[in-house]
């Protein structure tokens, strides 16, 4: 790790102005940043520790019915917050399906949405990676890429975004609040992330020095409270990144879908909102056929970026399953294996 200047910020203003320095980064829980610094992917000159900013560590339920999650609210605290987890069960489930208990105790809401891809070539300094070094090339393209993107990728980068939390948040139209020396602005989380295009080194619209201060969910997000689930397929039962994940939220009235939200994780460089599939569902009566159609629509644009065609079919199936379990609804009892296909008692028809 390169030696750096350590600054502990005591206010947002102090943090944002300190961050105007070249090659400065914010340190929240450090679970991603310190890791990247150890590997050498990130070599900052200045580290601004924002973890002491208590004003960013609050969950506020807003008068309009929405909720404002301070950027420093810990993943664990948010997931187990009684009212939050009741109102936004898919978000709580996504948080608890991620990483480990220890990591969730350190990881913050802001840090989580800003974590970097887990593409192994990105972590391997000896490999060519456009994201690490613009123009260097992308060794993942002809390499080990069975877990990489099937949507929204470009020839310059086929990586995926690893956050679980961000997936239901995108589904529920979360808004990111940003402070910088030039003031405050807000961006829809979906628009906060950028696709690789020709500039894979960029991941968000965040400008140098800008700090995420909060993430908000709009009032209508909690109308899905009864039917919101997050499912995450992975190669071990816990403590693994998603191969594919799906957040599905429904408003169901007498079997009729009034509103629907779907986002997929692990398929693109950002959580993938499936708006066309949502439209397909709205106003329809829940059925397996309908869910399958929605899944087709959701993955209509998917194409393999390498040796990962299987992910497309898997994603379709997971969309169907997520819709099914969302329809079945949430239980009061927290799940012992959040986000896991082994967490529940689904009604499964033979051969799907």
């Amino acid at each position, binding site marked *: *790790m390169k*030696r*750096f*200047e*350590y600054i*502990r910020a005591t206010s947002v203003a102090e943090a944002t102005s300190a961050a105007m320095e070249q090659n400065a980064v914010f*340190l929240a*829980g*450090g*679970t991603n940043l*310190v*890791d990247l610094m*150890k*590997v050498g992917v990130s070599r900052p000159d200045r*580290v601004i*520790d924002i*973890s002491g900013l208590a004003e960013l560590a609050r969950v506020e339920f807003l008068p309009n019915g929405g909720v404002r999650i301070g950027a420093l609210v810990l993943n*664990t605290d948010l997931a*187990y917050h009684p009212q939050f987890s009741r109102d936004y069960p898919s978000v709580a489930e996504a948080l608890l399906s991620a*990483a*480990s*208990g*220890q*990591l969730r*105790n*350190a990881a913050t809401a802001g840090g989580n949405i800003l974590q970097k891809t887990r593409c192994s070539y990105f972590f391997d300094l000896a490999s060519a990676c456009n994201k690490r070094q613009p123009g260097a090339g992308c060794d993942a393209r002809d390499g080990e890429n069975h877990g990489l993107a099937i949507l929204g990728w470009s020839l310059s980068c086929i990586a995926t975004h690893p956050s679980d939390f961000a997936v239901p948040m995108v589904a529920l139209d979360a808004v990111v609040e940003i402070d910088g020396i030039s003031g405050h602005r807000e961006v829809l989380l979906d628009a906060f992330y950028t696709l690789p295009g020709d500039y894979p080194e960029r991941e968000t619209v965040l400008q140098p020095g800008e700090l995420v201060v909060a993430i908000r969910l709009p009032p209508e997000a909690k109308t899905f409270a009864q039917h919101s689930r997050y499912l995450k397929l992975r190669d071990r*039962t*816990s*403590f693994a990144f998603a191969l594919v994940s799906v957040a599905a939220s429904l408003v169901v009235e007498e079997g009729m879908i009034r509103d629907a939200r779907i986002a997929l994780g692990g398929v693109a460089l950002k959580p993938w909102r499936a708006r066309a599939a949502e439209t397909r569902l709205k106003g329809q009566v829940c059925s397996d056929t309908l869910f399958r159609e929605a899944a087709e629509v959701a993955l209509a644009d998917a194409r393999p970026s390498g040796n990962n065609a299987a992910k497309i079919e898997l994603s379709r199936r997971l969309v169907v399953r997520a819709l099914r379990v969302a329809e079945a609804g949430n239980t009061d009892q*927290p799940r*012992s*294996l*959040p986000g896991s296909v082994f967490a529940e008692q689904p009604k499964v028809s033979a051969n799907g």
Partner: protein
Amino acid sequence: MIIRIELNEKPCSIEVDDPRVTLLDLLRERLNLTGTKKGCDRGQCGACTVLVDGRRINSCLTLAFSVDGRSVTTVEGLAKGGKLHPIQEVFISRDALQCGFCTPGQLMSAVGLANEMPLRNDPEQIREAMSGNLCRCGAYQGIVEAIMDYHGALSTDGATHETI
């Protein structure tokens, strides 16, 4: 910078000249508290688990500077006055350890998890909650049994291991 922490219930202050020092390396290399182990140094194994303000975290991904002013509990702080902490007792009786290298982290995790979530009489919940602590020797079943014992509720399902 002088770091002041409450370490295993005692005040501790130490001058650290390098911001790169992690809490784990502070403990092991500068304070000679070597009970806490390093298995991966990247948050992937849980061997370095300690409690900071009562919450379990991976000390390998925590900068020492960041814990200034906070309280830190390590495995050395579990037993009091020569008497083992109950979790330590049940780890021995359930043979919840083999080589012992992951054990300090497992113990801290076992103690810390109760501060995070309401516990049910459910081994599945413990398994999930302990999944951030790898044990290559494979002592998992004993670990779950020990934690169920410790939290005062031995389950029926799953825990098929017969006590000998």
